């Protein structure tokens, strides 16, 4: 075995950049996921399918209509909000009205996810779409021996902005306070005169838009747009949410970076690491949960965010 890589500072810095940008993506994806869990206490397993539809929306806007990147990002976020809204009205609200339990809602979201993926396969086919090379300059920027691609810069800037934005929104805005109230107790919030269904709709819109941002950013980073693309991030997103504390937004951000860095460093420094990166990531998840069973940041949009 060759240990020389351990002593290579450029290689280390490169992996930090790669791991942080990977982690930022997981974070953006997981915030939307955890937001719905925090407010409604249900796992929305159609979040990955929403993410995939957004990647296609962004791809079609940029590659099909030739729109510039900011509009592609906007298109993906709008599409995400629209799909999430559809999910709320078709898959979740009818069950809530009937007073069905949380498990039914999760099953309903699995069904919705299968439908969303099948429809995408029927419309777009099952072959991978790729951006035309003009979408984003593939040449990396060289910063003192480090290679940073335009996609990575975009991901880091957009993710941090989105994470900060969501954090501020939940903490400071009137709607954010309403969301936290509904998360704490729907009954109490209703008694206080909060429009609970309205708050839930806003939550879905925000979660969908975040899935949208994650979708287009992953598409730009990997140049791989295919109806099955959600399955890769789905499990990781769930892991990040559990790692950070179910329903906890800051936890999802931290969990995302932890998973991204652990994955990257496993591939980079463990011999044969690419084969066991998932095993190591989940082993670490397991140990963190042994020490902190409620995740790094504990639980809840209501009490912590």
């Amino acid at each position, binding site marked *: 075995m*060759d240990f020389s*890589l351990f002593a*290579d500072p450029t*290689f280390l810095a*490169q*992996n930090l950049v*790669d*791991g942080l940008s*990977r982690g930022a993506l997981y974070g953006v994806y997981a915030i939307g996921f955890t937001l719905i869990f925090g407010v409604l206490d249900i796992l929305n397993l159609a979040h990955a399918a929403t993410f995939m539809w957004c990647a296609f929306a962004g791809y079609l806007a940029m590659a099909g209509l030739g729109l510039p990147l900011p509009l592609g990002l906007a298109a993906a976020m709008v599409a995400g909000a629209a799909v999430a809204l559809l999910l709320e009205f078709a898959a979740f609200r009818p069950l809530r009205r009937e007073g069905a339990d949380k498990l039914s809602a999760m099953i309903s979201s699995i069904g919705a996810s299968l439908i969303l993926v099948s429809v995408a396969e029927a419309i777009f*086919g*099952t*072959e*991978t779409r*790729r951006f035309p*090379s003009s979408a984003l300059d*593939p*040449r*990396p920027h060289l910063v003192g021996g480090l*290679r940073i*691609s335009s996609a990575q810069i975009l991901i880091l800037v957009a993710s941090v902005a989105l994470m900060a934005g969501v954090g501020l929104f939940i903490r400071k805005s009137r709607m954010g306070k309403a969301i936290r109230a509904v998360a704490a107790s729907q009954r109490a919030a209703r008694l206080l005169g909060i429009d609970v269904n309205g708050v839930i709709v806003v939550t879905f819109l925000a979660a969908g838009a975040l899935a949208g941002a994650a979708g287009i950013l992953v598409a730009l*980073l*990997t*140049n*791989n747009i*295919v109806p*099955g*693309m959600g*399955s*890769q991030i789905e499990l990781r997103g769930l892991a990040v949410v559990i790692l950070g504390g179910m329903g906890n937004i800051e936890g999802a951000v931290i969990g995302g970076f932890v998973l991204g860095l652990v994955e*990257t460093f496993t*591939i*980079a420094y463990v011999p*044969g690491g*690419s*084969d066991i990166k998932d095993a190591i990531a989940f082993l670490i998840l397991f140990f963190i949960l042994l020490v902190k069973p409620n995740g790094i940041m504990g639980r809840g949009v209501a009490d912590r965010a």
Partner: protein
Amino acid sequence: MKRTLIAIAIAFVTLGAISAAPLPATIKVGSAESLTGDNASYGVPIRRGIELGVEEANASGILGSSKLQLVVYDDKADKQEGISVFNKLINDDKVSVIIGPTLSGTAFAAIPVAQKAGVPVIGTSLTAVGITAMGNYVFRDSLPQASVIPGTLAAAVAKFHPKKAALLFQADQEYSKSEADVYKAALQKAGIQLVASESYSKGDSDFRTQLSKLAARKPDIYVFCCLIGEAIPVLQQAREIGVTQPILGGNGFNNPNVIKSGKEAAEGLIVGSSWFIESKNPKSQAFVAAFTKKYGTPPDQFAAQGYTAVLILAQAIKSAGSADRASIRDALARVKGFDTVLGTFSFDENRDPVHPSTPITVKGGKYVLFE
């Protein structure tokens, strides 16, 4: 004396009657190819090559009045699907022979079904080590990795004189793993040090960390063994992280989509190919013209191999004089020195193909001879 003559005469008449037993009016040829998903970019050209071959064989009257009838199913590049499609072809459609499946991984799952049932199989894209070792009913006209890679490597060595090589492959894909092993052996034999070997798994789409790790060892050449879904992002991300050294691609890179989607990233890529579109072989030129006319797009190596399989099969059925599965197997095993679009073609004693291969490279957005 007279009795002997009569006996001989009777013997001749009987023999004649046997050999003249007409072939059935239709001979069913089954095919299992990946027609959906990323690997459709291998499966669809193969199906088109097969269809063109069936059309030409039927028009040529090589089998007299009997016709080949093609039954094609989608194996979805999936092992379970491959097994069920093979069962369907063998038991429901009662085909005489099966062409396919598309991927070696699917083949290792599905072909034993045909071997057990005594149905001959011709692989047209299977290059992994051990395909024909599955049994005496298994043939392929796609060159095994071990007979292409040393030649491709030798050509690259002659031009670039590399000392150190780095390898990337898919750990959970039989084709890719087998190709990586063959490359490792070939590198060792050529005296080139393998300084780094990395892998990825199905569904991965970000290969930057693996590629950075390879690049950190400063290799003189890179070897990538990938199927098309990963081949394109691997190439693009390799260029993105600054790889300028020569890249040798495995058989998965014998795919025009590498150029179409990979664009500039594909420039300079070197691949060992069993067939080359600008070949001067008149059969090959006629095939390119007919294929392009029928489908509006030029053929690739996989289309040529699909087409060739049908013509070899028609020849074997003719020489067997029978559509019986065992007779076709025996006749296929005897194919020697047959003139095809791939060049002069024979099956060796292991039912593997013997014909020339050519290193090609991507230049100016198309495949050209590597010199």
